[in-house]
């Protein structure tokens, strides 16, 4: 029989621990495929965050470091400057990157650190059970804003891609969605571009992926995809926010 689809060898055979309908699996696959397609096997180091992707070091088939909560860009900085020929990527969620790790991501971007950051924005703390994230939408319910996020009480959601695009350091910043196949294809292209920029020494590259969390959103996987397409994309418009030639 002809093989029409094969798992990339840059993912291990370890079964993913993610919930049904969660898009982390898609994001992992896209990143791993990009690493394979760009021929980076043998020179790539990944950094796992604290959050749902804390076990990412079990899944990416390359050298990996597990970072403290929010510190992945700092860890990536240490790795990249020690072995500059390595391709270094950090994989972070919204609590990790946009809350506790805000200083690290902003300064890695401002330095123009030649690393690639994949940012999973699902607007919730998944691993700890559904608390409000810095990217939780206004009106969206979470266990720490049970009546829905109220700007007066809980502050406003943060648009990371737009914010980082104001800096001079980054070479590439894009926001994509994992809600349907056409968008997943676009996300793959963005991830490839981000890694290419690092390979060419252009500096900091960043891809934000709008993702689902059916478990903590209390939605079916299909409804969760609709939530990304409608609500999340309205708050977080898709597109390329910075691209240095």
């Amino acid at each position, binding site marked *: 029989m002809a093989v029409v689809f094969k798992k990339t060898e840059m993912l291990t055979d370890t079964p993913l621990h993610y919930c049904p309908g969660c898009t982390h699996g898609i994001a992992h696959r896209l990143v791993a495929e990009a690493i394979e397609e760009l021929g980076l096997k043998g020179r790539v180091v990944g950094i796992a965050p604290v959050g749902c992707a804390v076990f990412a070091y079990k899944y990416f088939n390359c050298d990996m470091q597990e*970072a403290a909560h929010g510190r992945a860009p700092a860890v990536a900085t240490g790795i990249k400057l020690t072995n500059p020929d390595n391709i270094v990527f950090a994989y972070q969620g919204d609590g990790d990157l946009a809350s506790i790790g805000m200083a690290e991501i*902003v300064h890695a971007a401002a330095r123009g650190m030649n690393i690639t950051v994949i940012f999973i924005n699902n607007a919730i703390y998944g691993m700890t059970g559904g608390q409000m994230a810095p990217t939780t939408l206004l009106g969206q319910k979470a266990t720490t804003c049970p009546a829905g996020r109220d700007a007066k009480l809980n502050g406003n959601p943060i648009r990371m891609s737009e914010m980082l695009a104001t800096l001079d350091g980054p070479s590439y910043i894009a926001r994509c969605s994992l809600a349907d196949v056409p968008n997943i294809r676009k996300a793959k292209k963005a991830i490839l571009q981000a890694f290419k920029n690092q390979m060419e020494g252009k500096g900091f590259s960043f891809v934000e992926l709008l993702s689902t969390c059916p478990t903590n959103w209390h939605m079916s996987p299909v409804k969760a995809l609709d939530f990304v397409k409608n609500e999340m994309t309205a708050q977080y418009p898709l597109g390329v926010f910075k691209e240095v030639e």
Partner: protein
Amino acid sequence: MAERKLMKGNEAIAEAAIRGGCRFYAGYPITPQNEIPEYMSWRLPQVGGHFIQAESEIAAINMVYGSAGAGGRAMTSSSSPGVSLKQEGISYICGAELPCVIINMVRSGPGLGGIQPAQGDYFQAVKGGGHGDYRMLVYGPCSVQECVDLVYNAFDKAEKYRLPVMILGDGMLGQIMEAVTLPEMKDPATFPKKPWATTGEGFGKTRRIVNSLYIVPDELEDMNHKLQKVYDDMCENETVFEEYLTEDAELIITAYGTVARIAKSAVDLLRAQGVKAGLFRPVTLYPFPKDALDKLAAQSSVKEFIAVELSMGQYVEDVKLVVEGRKPVKFFNRTGGNVMSPEDIVEFAKKEA
């Protein structure tokens, strides 16, 4: 080539680290250790290394984590409030079994405290200031030359045991200028290989994972025991101390770091006045030189001890733990950035001892 130079403590530490193989430094400005990052910023690029002024103390220690995990000889430095901020990172570094060097030029506290010399971070350094069970190799040098000698070999020790080595200095040691002999540059080609480091070649069974997460209790318990074996091994082999005029001593003054130099002068003054005083100075604060102090506690000539420190009674606790009530242990201190003189110690000894 070894060379003789007049150097400030902080700068001597930076140069000794580089000669000992340091090629990555991340730090954040804080008094009284700013000469270390300043020196590193121009000196490291000369030897093909990397200096980075981190956005925070927290980022700095995590950059060190990344570099050390990638096989680099990485260092950070700070002073008390900054070292408090690094504690989470230090715990992760210990959990992930990474070698690195951390300098703490201690200032007075608590809180923002002051910028003058103090020893109030003793408990934090030797008992573990971060979360979980871990230890570091902690040195308390008393002179600029001793800083150089200890820092020069600190990476070798860190890599031997795969743990952080901390230099617990103080503001005085950082700012004082003394003549030092600088050892020759170590050749990185002679450094031990690190098969565990994430250098990018890993794939499949050869993957290297730098990690401190053990979600299964039995696995973490095994890890705790594995680490403890390393710490026991370190205690067995790395304990360093100095004794001065203790053979016939009736009074043992004990102190570490720069305070021990002041105490040494006090011993000389007391001897000149006919008091049989001696000095016991730990060079390693962890491991604490228990056996040597135990012998002094058992020595028949010794009638009592005075523990001298620039904190409110931290070091004295370890002294008492070893002496175990066999001889009286008196306590003399200054804090807040104040430093006692040799005469102050003599006066205390004559009045209280």
